[in-house]
């Protein structure tokens, strides 16, 4: 399906693509083991350490590069989980209608009524520090209800379309309908939600790590920030320019890039697809 690509799309795609590439090539790109003490503490940027070192003498650039990987992992896992559950519940409810639909939507309402971020922090605090997978699971579990709701309403509309009835007339089963008609029809919506939740996941992961609620030895952008901001020196020296700023910038670029993509993929923004 060809689609007019907006500048928004391209800038988002470029940002996200670059970061994804960095995440993928982290072992190659990273000059040092991000956890290893690879130099003196707090050396400013130099040839040996392009972004200097932190208070423990770890290379900050390497930490940011590996942080991209951690963020990408969380983003993909969390969004994948949220979308998988959301689409499953939403499409299932939309297709089943009746009491299944009613029960599913009641559950969704309950989940939606709970504010996600405080819940996340609470869960993270109760469960103790969590690695990227645990965070992804938590975010995924927080994200699905919103997806389920919007997917369901769209699925209801699609399920009423003649071509779905026609396929049923050909003897199609549920799996076929979902795979052939519903999911492709919801494709743009699903893609936009995936990207949106990927962005949310990156921000939330960074936030949790920043609050010190994630695995303390996990290398992530949030934990770099956390460590930087709990080092008193960053407030009084130029350390912030090569320690805080690049980490913040990485988070910002990832979140903004994903937000751009999500906006560009939003079905409503593309007139071509409105008819379907």
């Amino acid at each position, binding site marked *: *399906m060809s689609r007019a690509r907006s500048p928004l799309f391209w800038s988002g795609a470029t940002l996200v693509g670059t970061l994804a590439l960095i995440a993928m090539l982290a072992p190659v790109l990273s000059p040092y083991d991000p956890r290893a003490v690879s130099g003196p503490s707090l050396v400013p940027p130099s040839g040996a350490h392009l972004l200097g070192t932190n208070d423990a003498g770890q290379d900050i650039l390497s930490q940011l590069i590996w942080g991209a990987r951690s963020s990408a992992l969380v983003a993909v896992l969390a969004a994948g989980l949220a979308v998988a559950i959301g689409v499953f519940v939403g499409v299932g409810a939309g297709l089943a209608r009746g009491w299944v639909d009613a029960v599913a939507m009641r559950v969704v309402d309950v989940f939606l009524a709970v504010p996600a971020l405080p819940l996340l922090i609470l869960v993270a605090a109760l469960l103790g520090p969590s690695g990227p997978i645990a965070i992804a699971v938590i975010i995924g579990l927080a994200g699905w209800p919103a997806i389920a709701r919007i997917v369901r309403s769209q699925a209801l509309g699609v399920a009423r*379309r*003649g*071509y779905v*009835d*026609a*396929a*049923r*007339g*050909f*003897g*199609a*089963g*549920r799996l*076929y309908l979902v795979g*052939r*008609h519903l999911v*492709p*029809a919801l494709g743009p919506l699903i893609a936009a939600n995936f990207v949106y939740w990927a962005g949310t996941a990156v921000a939330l992961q960074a936030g949790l790590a920043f609050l010190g609620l994630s695995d303390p030895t996990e290398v992530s952008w949030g934990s770099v920030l956390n460590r930087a901001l709990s080092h008193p020196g960053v407030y009084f020296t130029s350390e912030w320019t090569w320690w805080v700023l690049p980490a913040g910038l990485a988070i910002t670029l990832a979140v903004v890039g994903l937000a751009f993509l999500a906006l560009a993929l939003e079905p409503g923004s593309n007139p071509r697809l409105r*008819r*379907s």
Partner: protein
Amino acid sequence: MTAPLLEVSDLSVRFGGDVDALRGVGFALDREESLAVVGESGAGKSTLAHCIVGLIQPPEAAGSVRLNGEELIGASAATLRSVRWRLVAIALQGAPFNPVVPVIDQVAEPLREHGGLSSSRARRRADDLARESLLDPALLRRFPHQLAGGERRKATLAMALALDPAVVILDEPAAGLDPATGRELLDRVHELRRARGFSLIAISHDLPAVARLCERTIVLYAGEVAEAGPTEHVIGRPAHPYTWALVNSYPVTSTTKDLRPIRGEPPDPRAVPSGCPFHPRCTQSETICRDRHPPLERSGGRLVACHFGGLKVLLSATLVHKAFHSGSRRLDALQAVSLTVREGESVGVVGPSGSGKTTLARVIAGDLSPDRGEVILEGERLARSWRRDARALSRRVQLVRQDPWDALSPRLTVAELVREPLDIAGAGDQQRRSAVRARLESVGLPGYGTFLEARVHELSGGQLQRIALARAIAARPKLLVADEPTSMLDASEQARLLVVLRELQVEMGLGLVLVSHDLALVRKVTDRIVVLDAGRVAEEGSSAAVSGRPRSLAARRLMEAARAFAVGDERGASERASGGGTN
């Protein structure tokens, strides 16, 4: 109760030891009764006639033919001589005249030889007979080759009537005559029969001709009786698939529908198929048809030799109610609507906008569940469910929706669209590809090349309608419900689609329900028409009856609109065009 005048039972004829001309034929004929024997050439009609006049004897013939209590099969030459002309006379199709003797002498011959009349009295009598048979007596003086075919036919009739026999057999009475003459002759036979009180057996493949003449009809197929009973039943509402096909293949004014030939070839009498002899050509045959010979049994006011009692009922919707609710308002879309579609039958559903046509279409296609009443498809209740058997059943009925933009997914290519039913049914890859091509071409679209990759938004409404029809057919349904399937097509495209549908009906015994507000179109395609008005059946009848003599107000209105178009005036045409997409 006295024995009937003519009683044929278990009559079989085999020529040359391997050609089965007749097999176990039986029927009875009483005084002043008339019987039509119909069938394709080679069905054994003439053989039967010959047996009745004792022209075929053992060893070829077996069984019994009793005339006035006298057995003719195996009778002596003297017996036969005493019976022929006096009790039973036959007017054979191939003129039996001696070319070198004037016709009058030949007509008078039975009078002289069997009636004992003098030569001159016999000639005078022959003149009278000629006049009675609407033949100018002067023509009798000529030699056979000097007469036209019709005149010779009349002469044969005169000869058969010569000795005032109790049973007259006419072999193809109107064959070779121009319609007016044929009609005149048949009328004459009718009058004579009333006047003289003879019993008549009319043998013909010309159904309409004999249907006018005879009260009863038997249909022969491959030397057997396929169907027998009162003519209005047998011809008017055929039960046997063969009779149905035969009736549909005749051009007559009593149906408005276009012709549909019978599929396949007539059977080779040397190798009559096992089981039901019609099964290779029958659209509804099953395994049993091949294995077992169907007995001739009573079914619907006639005798039918079919395991299923004749044409199957594909669909029966009984007392269907359907209401829609929007807010507090309730709209009764269908109220106590019943509809039956038989094998190979076309039923038109017409009505003005809002009459419930589309709702009915969706209900009988299983797309909507009725509030009350039930829909039975091929003996099973049609219900929308995810169960495997219900899904398999729903494949048997296909709905072609009115709005092709809604009915065709915008994300699939033409090839994918047409292939979808096969994908779902799990057909082989090769099969899918060839089916896509065949189906597209059958509706007049290219079955190859870039067209296959096109998507909905690149195509016209007419193309989409044809694709929708093609894919519905690709599902190989038994019943096709088409809701205004040609509303976006021009006249020639429309004609082409109708031909395709007709072929499918011949080919697969497809039942067709055609939903439209366009009566002119519907009457061309359907056997019966159901007129809906405000969710109720306003009128139902044969297409000819409904379109020719509409009784309900709704039907009359529709007919007026259609007639206006039929004479081709501008107003009517534009009206129809603008009304095309709405319903």
